[in-house]
């Protein structure tokens, strides 16, 4: 009997499951998500998956080597403000770091705006008498009495989690460790989050915020994952359960719970992991992911096969400084509402009709025109066959909504529908342009990878606006994330702050720091019962003397046993700086701030999917009028019915169960051996 590995991606509405067998055959299914306890939806999904495979659930689980899971539990706790009641212990005199927010506020001209509530209110941020100095020496000893007083207050307040962040603990963690031990004694049930474990790096704002987020989402993630582990155990699964991390790697449950803040982008990370895998399969290393959903659109970059990573994420307004895949989100999607402002200018979003009432055409009471309504009026969507016919769309309601916009603009209905469509495409294109400018790349050499239910109707026009010539729509698009997780590796990231001028740091000393981190990382892989190949990647955060932002410099090419490894480190930094910022300053001191190590336990890639058998081209299913400046009858194809290599020329519609791809005049598409749609975009 075949062995399986299963990817499970729990989203807001659906839980997607993908199983890959020894021959690379892919079976996908979905179940409704169960937000109150996501593990119920997961088990339902496993039932369906086993049905699709003609097995019973116990048999499937017995034949499963690995389950990889992306969860939104941590994300939702943040987004919905339903995380744990957290107490924070800080160095005396520095209790307000999270509320001072480095003096920053967004939205420069919005002065009538209430300040955000910090995750921990001031009354639960308690000072402890202690101080470590900048050089790591003890300025003030840990005051046991002030610690006991603080813990008594937190016990009385009934906190579920305690975060601890003292100044300079990245350098000398002993006060935090002693505090952790005291918490374990005084509040044995509390989830403990020490900044020296969560984020042992200089810069207290980043460190305290990340440590607090960890404490805030930790208890919920802990409860959920333990429930899931026991449900799976009851169902007969004894293999490993690996959790998708924001940085794109996997962690076993125990580690995922310890570093809960590392899971706040667990869901979207699967999509980027899938892009990385897709880049390998397509032999096209430069991809822009375009994941357009109902209320927002996620955009991410894969450059030369590697996903770009960022350390300046905010999730639900909260700073999480851990490495995470760089996913930019703009607040516009299929449900975004069109409106005309007092100046007579049309806008789309940021308000969204959400799932309830949804776009006017859902017929659930929505009256305002959304992007989906415009697409329906333009004929891009099939009123009868939307989402595989599960949901009929109300054309009359969509038309009424679009007419209201047309009336305000004094233009005709079709111009208004086309306008809504164009404005949202402009926002997407500008969003992608900004993401690529920020990464210092020219988007034109990239292919746009389209996934997410709403993407297909927009992707070819967005590509045109950016002068991109290639768009790819994978067949698995809706279950892309679950699939991508199966191509991810175990990964631990370790950091040591090690400040010094590169010319004065001893290369052997730095090498020793890296070796110690490697030993630590390997030990954790061993704890997770991993015995496969291990890859270690060293890097350093560096800056020039007077700068305050560091640049992460990969140190793969450095010969540590060579004559002058620090010279090589400095050179690597100058080159990286030049690549990113167009210049370097070789006569300036290069300061090394953090030594970083990624320890990767390499899991075998899923077996390659067998190519689809050749067969004659499929005829189009129907003709449908769509509006592209004028009404044109265009052929409608089913993506799944197209033969490998079959060509489709625009204008045309290619429909799958979950998305509708609009090919415009001049677009030429063909299907790949795996059945993906590969579109050559026509000129503007």
């Amino acid at each position, binding site marked *: 009997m075949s062995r399986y590995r299963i990817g499970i991606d729990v989203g807001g509405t659906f839980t997607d499951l993908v199983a890959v067998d020894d021959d690379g055959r892919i079976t996908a299914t979905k179940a409704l998500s169960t937000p109150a306890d996501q593990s119920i939806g997961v088990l339902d999904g496993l039932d369906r998956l086993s049905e699709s495979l003609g097995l019973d659930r116990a048999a499937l689980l017995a034949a499963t080597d690995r389950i990889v899971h992306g969860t939104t539990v941590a994300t939702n706790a943040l987004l919905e403000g339903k995380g744990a009641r957290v107490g924070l212990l800080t160095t005396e*005199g520095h209790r307000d770091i999270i509320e*001072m927010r480095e003096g*920053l506020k967004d939205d420069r001209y919005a002065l009538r705006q209430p*300040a955000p509530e910090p995750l921990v209110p001031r009354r639960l941020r308690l000072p402890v008498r202690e101080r470590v100095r900048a050089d790591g020496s003890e*300025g003030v000893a840990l005051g046991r009495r002030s610690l006991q007083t603080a813990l008594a207050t937190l016990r009385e307040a009934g906190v579920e989690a305690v975060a601890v962040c003292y100044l300079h603990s990245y350098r000398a963690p002993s006060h935090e460790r002693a505090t952790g031990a005291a918490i374990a004694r005084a509040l044995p049930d509390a989830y403990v989050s020490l900044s020296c474990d969560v984020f042992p790096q*200089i810069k207290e704002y980043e460190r305290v915020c990340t440590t607090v987020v960890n404490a805030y989402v930790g208890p919920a993630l802990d409860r959920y994952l333990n429930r899931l582990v026991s449900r799976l155990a009851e169902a007969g699964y004894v293999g490993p359960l690996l959790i998708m991390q924001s940085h794109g790697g996997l962690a076993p449950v125990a580690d995922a719970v310890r570093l809960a803040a590392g899971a706040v982008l667990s869901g979207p990370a699967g999509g980027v992991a899938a892009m990385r895998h897709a880049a390998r399969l397509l032999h096209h290393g430069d991809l822009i992911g375009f994941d357009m959903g109902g209320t927002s659109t996620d955009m991410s970059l894969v450059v030369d096969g590697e996903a770009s990573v960022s350390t300046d994420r905010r999730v639900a307004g909260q700073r999480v400084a851990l490495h995470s895949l760089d996913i930019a989100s703009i607040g516009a999607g299929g449900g975004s509402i069109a409106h005309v402002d007092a100046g007579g200018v049309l806008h789309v979003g940021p308000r969204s009709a959400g799932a309830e009432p949804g776009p006017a055409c859902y017929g659930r009471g929505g009256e305002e025109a959304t992007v989906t309504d415009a697409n329906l009026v333009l004929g891009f969507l099939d009123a009868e066959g939307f989402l595989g016919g599960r949901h009929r769309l109300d054309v009359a309601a969509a038309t009424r909504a679009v007419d209201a916009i047309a009336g305000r603009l004094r233009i005709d209905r079709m111009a208004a529908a086309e306008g809504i469509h164009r404005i949202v495409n402009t926002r997407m294109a500008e969003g992608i342009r900004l993401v690529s*400018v*920020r990464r210092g790349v020219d988007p034109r050499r990239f292919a746009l990878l389209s996934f997410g239910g709403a993407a297909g109707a927009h992707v070819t026009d967005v590509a045109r606006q950016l002068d991109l010539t290639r768009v790819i729509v994978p067949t698995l698009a809706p279950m892309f994330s679950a699939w991508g997780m199966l191509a991810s590796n175990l990964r631990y990231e370790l950091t040591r702050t090690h400040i010094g001028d590169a010319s004065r740091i001893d290369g052997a000393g730095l090498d020793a720091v890296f070796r110690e981190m490697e030993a630590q990382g390997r030990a954790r892989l061993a704890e997770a019962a991993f015995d496969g190949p291990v890859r270690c990647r060293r890097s350093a955060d560096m800056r020039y003397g007077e700068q*305050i932002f560091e640049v992460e410099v990969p140190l793969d090419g450095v010969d540590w046993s060579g004559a002058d490894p620090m010279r090589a480190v400095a050179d690597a930094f100058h080159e990286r700086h030049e690549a990113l910022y167009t210049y370097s300053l070789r006569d300036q001191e290069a300061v090394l701030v953090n030594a970083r190590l990624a320890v990767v336990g390499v899991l075998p890639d899923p077996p390659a999917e067998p190519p689809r058998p050749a067969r004659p081209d499929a005829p189009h299913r129907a003709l449908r009028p769509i509006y592209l400046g004028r009404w044109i009858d265009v052929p409608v194809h089913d993506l799944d019915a197209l033969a490998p290599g079959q060509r489709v020329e625009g204008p045309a519609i290619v429909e799958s169960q979950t998305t509708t791809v609009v090919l415009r005049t001049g677009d030429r598409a063909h299907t790949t051996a795996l059945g993906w749609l590969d579109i050559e975009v026509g000129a503007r």
Partner: protein
Amino acid sequence: MVDPITVSVVQHRLGAIVEEMGEAMLRTSYSQILNSSRDFSTGICYPDGRLVAQAEHVPIHVGALPWAAKAVHDYFGATIRPGDVYLLNDPYRGGNHIPDLTAFVPVFDGDRLAFWSINRSHQSDIGGATHGAYNPMATEIWQEGIRIPPLKLHDQGRLREDVYDTIVLNVRHPRDFRGDLAAMIGSARVGERRLRALLAELGSERAEAAIAAVLDGAERQARAVIAEWPDGEYVGVAHLDDDGHGYHDIPIHARVTKRGSDLTVDLSESHPQVIGFVNSSYPNMRSAVAMALAYLIDPDTPKNDGTFRPLQVIAKEGTVVWAREGAPVTLATNHCAQEILEAIMRALEPACPERVMAGWGRRFRIAIQGKDPRTGRAFIWHMFHARPGGGASSAGDGWPSAGEWQAAGGIKFGSVEVAEVRFPLHFRRHELRPGSGGDGRHRGGPGCELELVLETAEPAVANTAGDGVKYPSCGMHGGLDGKPHTYTLRSRGRRPRKLLTKEAGIELRPGDVLHVLSAGGGGWGDPAERDPAARERDRADGFVLDDAEGGR
């Protein structure tokens, strides 16, 4: 006539272009004040200076660019060619204050000058008597830095090296200056490239018509807001503490007349110009008035020429808001810009109480120069920590430590840990200052308390620049004022001394403690109307002092 959809697309596109110019600047600039504190603006103007679009970086830069673009255009007129780059900083020739240098790249449509693509950036140094241009002792502009009138730096793609060298020679950190200037020009060229693409895509006529319609749309939005307020004449007065040279309680007087959807702001009854650097240049004054309108209308309304069309400004040369050529003006982007803003807000309080916000803190900066005993090297530290609180508004309490009114949360203070590693300074305390936010239905945001210990081996020297130890952040609509700044120097064997806001050459000895209490924001609305639950929260959180009952 252009269709409304094209207008919407063009409006989004213009916003994205100035934003992309800003991203390019952030990525390539060298100085901390630019890449971290983001003290720069990017914008697009018509040849005659009218503002087409501006990125949302520094509010006090809004509405200032037109004067600069106009000055360059007036000076060079028909000689402007593709490939040229122009510079300017002189406050008496289109600039607002000396450290803000502006670079202009002309955007041609065929052989017609269609736009200016502009980058304005605050330089970390611009020459003059003190490092960084803030010179409280200055009594004339020549003591503040090098004055650059409209000047051609690149002639049809060729750098004029003699001109370039003249400027570079006059600043203290030539390498940083060169790097930042290259970044500014690069950023303006990004705008040029994208504007030309827009013109090519739509054709000149349609692009121009669409842009004109975008400006008209912004005008309609601004007018729709103003029209809601009752007609009438409104008067507001705000005060500067002093100018550091003998003038005290300097009034800024705003008489605001509102008719229909038009506003006239008359500042001509303001105090005559003074000796110190709180005087404003004309463009900076116009910018401050524009900033007031930008804060009052809806925040998403684009800021362009149309937005400010409802506004007429009357002022008198020789007053503190419009100094005669030669007076020092460097502090004016903070003070008196904030007092111009405050006077207008105070005036319009009865007209639109839901829109005016209470006062945000004033700036009070310190720079310390000394030697780091750990490295033996000289250092200069500029205090961005201990920011004052934001003002409350109809929407809620003020933002804690969000800084000054003219930057509104746009300036970041760095990490305490990093500062301690890099400078011989020890931050014994750096947290919010209880009781500093003005009471009200919505409470002002608290300022900060900083206890900073100087850990040098030898004496160091400090300069201050700012205002607001006497005049606090004003309350609005019945809300109370916040607490003003109090900065105290504690030195062993000496009596504690309150620092003045405009002092140079303060001697600091090893072990001295600077005790900074920065201003809280003003409160909004009657304190009696404050939600008891909010009051209870304030007490539990220690944001009010024990004797603060009853709104004191």
